[in-house]
């Protein structure tokens, strides 16, 4: 079998074994622990105050802005990985290509910065 497939076979097995081994203590708890359901017990914890309304309140749109900028820069990073492994063999040309790539993204960062998308008010 090729190395890649074996490598990731291990990853898959690790995931499955990890799930099994984390479920085992939960099963033990299910067997050992007491189960007594009271309405008071099932209340969510809000510092002792009886919860009111829905937990799903409105949240600030800023959370979305950060997630958005994150996605864009995360995608940018995936192009840096292959570049990082070969730029030395390809020499100065590869460096200038990456310079152009990153300068364009810097413009985006500066735009977000100037527009206040990076502020948390």
């Amino acid at each position, binding site marked *: 079998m090729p190395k890649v497939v074996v490598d990731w076979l291990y990853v898959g097995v690790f995931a499955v074994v990890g799930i099994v081994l984390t479920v085992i203590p939960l099963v033990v708890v299910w067997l050992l622990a007491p189960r007594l359901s009271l309405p008071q017990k099932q209340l969510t914890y809000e510092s002792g105050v009886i919860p009111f309304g829905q937990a799903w309140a409105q949240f600030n749109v800023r959370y979305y802005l950060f997630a958005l900028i994150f996605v864009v820069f995360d995608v940018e990073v995936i192009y840096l*990985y292959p570049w990082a492994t070969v*730029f030395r063999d390809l020499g100065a040309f590869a460096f200038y290509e990456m310079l152009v790539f990153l300068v364009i993204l810097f413009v985006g960062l500066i735009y977000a910065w100037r527009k206040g998308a990076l502020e948390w008010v």
Partner: protein
Amino acid sequence: MGELAAFVILSAVILVPAVIVVTSRNIVRSALSLVPTFLGVTGLYVMLHAEFVAGIQVLIYAGAITVLILFVIMLTEGGSGTMVRQVTGQVPLGAMAATWLAFLILVTLSRTQWPVAAGPPPQYSVQGIGTAFLTNYVLIFEVTSLVLLISLVGAIVIARREE
């Protein structure tokens, strides 16, 4: 034998959660079901020896896009989204269209002879992809950064309007 078993398991890991994604009444469950689908696709990439793309698939799809989707769900519908009707009146029409398309594709697949290349399975490396990006596909590489810039600017403009 082992390969076929792995393929069948991965296909199940892709398709069963995908059914939940498109049918669940609970929008958060739909979004979380995307994760096993994406991870199953990662497995298929590995079986096709595309290791780098597999890593990127986990990083971007499972780690970034799903998070973005979850954020938007929590910022818009959140809990209320679990109670309301999630489908339009087009269900029969959509089901027909999707089934018809699936039928069409499967028939085409069964009748087509692909020019499959012979030889040992290839070994792809990150280095190979990097070299390709920086030499033959350099235009795509640079245009990608422009696309990223434009979508960043566009999304910020749209999301921040009327603040």
